[in-house]
């Protein structure tokens, strides 16, 4: 087993990986940028190496500096987390060349699956159903327009290097295609350093269902059941759950087999996720393989009891998987809510700033993978995820009730979060009925505002806060600014 691992990431996911390393008795190295000198992953690691300026290209994307940090500290392996360099074939190859173990699939697998059009071709060859669409990227506007006509509108523009909804656009009619392609290519280029795009038929009201895969280098492969991630805003997941309310045991078995077949077709090693869209008629289509630890992996850990990060490290160290498909059993139901620094009343616009006060939820069945603390300044340079709140219960209703209680107790002052929005989604009839499709937020929650039913209580708190903090100010009628401080009133006692 490794003696020391460098975690090439930041925030909640870096911290989550550090936890498992510590449990396994493995030493840890964090890396950080100027903006993250006091970030949780720096505080939690055994050692921390400064990479450079806040801009990702100068820090978390700077391959030379990360490799140098690993060498300097004697780390034997690198865990990339998600985002940043996690699905960068060049980085994985560079680690391999420098004698460092990259905790993830081999570079050739990352590259083959990272190009979504190549992945589509591989799946078609191996009999995995794919969404109708193009099998190679295209930049010529006329060719794109012809392909779109062939597929029939609406079409979906996707980035060949895509993920996380970046560079994705739905186009309803031909006259909007060109501008959408330019904008998608620009966003893809900024996010992935690759502006290649292609078109797929846009499926109306699908569910997003994905399967967690574990594969060792010895040919053993299992899936750890599904996750449903249909509740999204801006094509980015915000609520995930397992099991999916839409899957029958029979459908789960068929999709699980397709997921394993997809992973086998690509020669997969380590942890990965095979994503599908499921249409209302129970037909499913391959979407893509994410060659990394997923943001939403905790819900799988809650129901299977398997530590996905521990398995990743063991597989990378060459240990066999020692798990059969029959041994994988889901117990109960788990839900994850992603807590982002964003304002749900302003179209989910990012809301960076300083956390003034925080109260983390706890209690039976609650897990909070958290990357912030009171006093922490949320940087503008990175993805605005603050934490992932996970609730586990005996069944779906119990998990929903636990999540609602935990969200009610979760207080973050100083920046806006979607906590009140998430609570209303969980309380809604559509969510409770399991009617979760990727258009859920647009269909039920466009122009959402919280129902503010406790204004009187809020005013009482306002008054009580005045009385507690500045009681004499009100009593003497002095404006707050002119209220003497205790030191002024104490006069000579001050010295």
């Amino acid at each position: 087993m490794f003696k020391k691992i460098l975690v090439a990431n930041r925030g909640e996911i870096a911290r989550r990986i550090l936890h498992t390393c510590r449990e396994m008795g493995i030493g840890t190295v964090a890396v950080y940028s100027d903006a993250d000198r006091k970030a949780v992953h720096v505080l939690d690691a055994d050692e921390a190496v400064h990479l450079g300026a806040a801009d990702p290209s100068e820090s978390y994307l700077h391959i030379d500096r990360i490799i140098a940090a690993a060498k300097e500290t004697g780390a034997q392996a690198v865990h990339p987390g998600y985002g940043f360099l996690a699905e960068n074939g060049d980085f994985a190859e560079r680690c391999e060349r420098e004698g460092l173990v990259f905790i993830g699939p081999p570079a050739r697998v990352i590259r083959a699956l990272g190009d979504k059009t190549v992945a589509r071709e591989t799946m078609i060859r191996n009999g995995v159903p794919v969404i109708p669409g193009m099998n190679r990227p295209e930049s010529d506007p006329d060719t794109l327009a012809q392909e779109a006509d062939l597929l029939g509108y609406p079409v979906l523009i996707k980035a060949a290097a895509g993920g996380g909804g970046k560079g994705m656009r739905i186009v309803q009619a031909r006259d909007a295609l060109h501008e959408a392609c330019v904008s998608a290519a620009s966003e893809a280029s900024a996010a992935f350093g690759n502006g290649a795009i292609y078109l797929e038929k846009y499926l109306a009201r699908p569910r997003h269902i994905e399967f967690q895969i574990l594969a060792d280098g010895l040919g053993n492969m299992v899936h750890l059941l599904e996750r449903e991630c249909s509740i999204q805003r801006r094509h980015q997941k915000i609520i995930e759950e397992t099991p999916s309310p839409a899957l029958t045991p029979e459908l789960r078995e068929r999709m699980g087999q397709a997921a394993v077949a997809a992973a086998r077709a690509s020669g997969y090693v380590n942890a990965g996720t095979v994503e599908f869209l499921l249409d209302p008629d129970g037909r499913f289509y391959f979407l893509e393989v994410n060659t990394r630890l997923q943001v939403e992996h905790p819900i799988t850990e809650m129901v299977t009891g398997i530590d996905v990060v521990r398995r990743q490290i063991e597989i990378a160290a060459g240990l066999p998987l020692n798990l059969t498909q029959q041994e994988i059993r889901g117990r109960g139901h788990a839900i994850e809510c992603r807590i982002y620094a964003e304002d749900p009343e302003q179209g989910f616009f990012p809301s960076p700033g300083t956390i003034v006060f925080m109260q983390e939820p706890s209690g039976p069945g609650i897990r909070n993978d958290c990357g912030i603390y009171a006093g922490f300044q949320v940087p503008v340079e990175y993805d605005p995820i603050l934490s992932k709140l996970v609730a586990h219960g005996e069944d779906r209703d119990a998990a929903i009730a636990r999540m609602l209680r935990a969200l009610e107790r979760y207080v973050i002052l100083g920046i806006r979060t979607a906590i009140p929005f998430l609570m209303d989604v969980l309380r809604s009839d559509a969510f409770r009925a399991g009617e979760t499709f990727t258009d859920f937020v647009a269909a039920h929650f466009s122009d959402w505002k919280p129902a503010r039913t406790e204004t009187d209580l809020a005013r009482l708190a306002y008054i009580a806060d005045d009385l507690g903090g500045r009681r004499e100010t009100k009593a003497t009628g002095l404006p707050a600014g002119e209220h003497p401080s205790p030191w002024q009133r104490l006069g000579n006692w001050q010295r």
Partner: protein
Amino acid sequence: MQYRFKTDEDAAVWTVDPEGTDRLTVTTGTQTLHVRHGAVSPHHLHLAVDGLGVNTFVLRGDGEKTVVIRGVPYPVQDADFAERKTKKKADRENLPQVITPPMPSVVVRIPVSEGDRVCKGQAVIVLTAMKMETTLTSPFPGRVTKVNVAAGEKVMPGRILVDIEKEAETDAPDEGR
């Protein structure tokens, strides 16, 4: 003592009678409430209203406090203060509207050039912040007189990114002016 809280229409006038350091009686116009209160920490207040306990979390701002109760934030404003603030805001709105980023951002693209005519709502600059693209649009029809930034530049709120000279919407170009 009296409190005037800002409401959608007017102001709600509450009469407050403090009793000792941890009790108060409040008359809201429709009801009388008996409240026990205690600060758990500088931002955490526990209230018991007619015997029923609730945790509240208070963030103090400029004439406004945000109170979080059961996960929902409530902005609570002192009406006297709010009136002064609204006046200031109205003054500000009379100034010519400008193209400035809502938060620290990086310029991605500038789809207009100096000299271009733009209509109201036309995209003039594309920014990215926290990995999300945002498009700023022209607040009125006009002519771009100056582009003050370049793609790739980091910009802060308040910085004017593009100068646009206002033109009347229906005006045809007039040589005489």
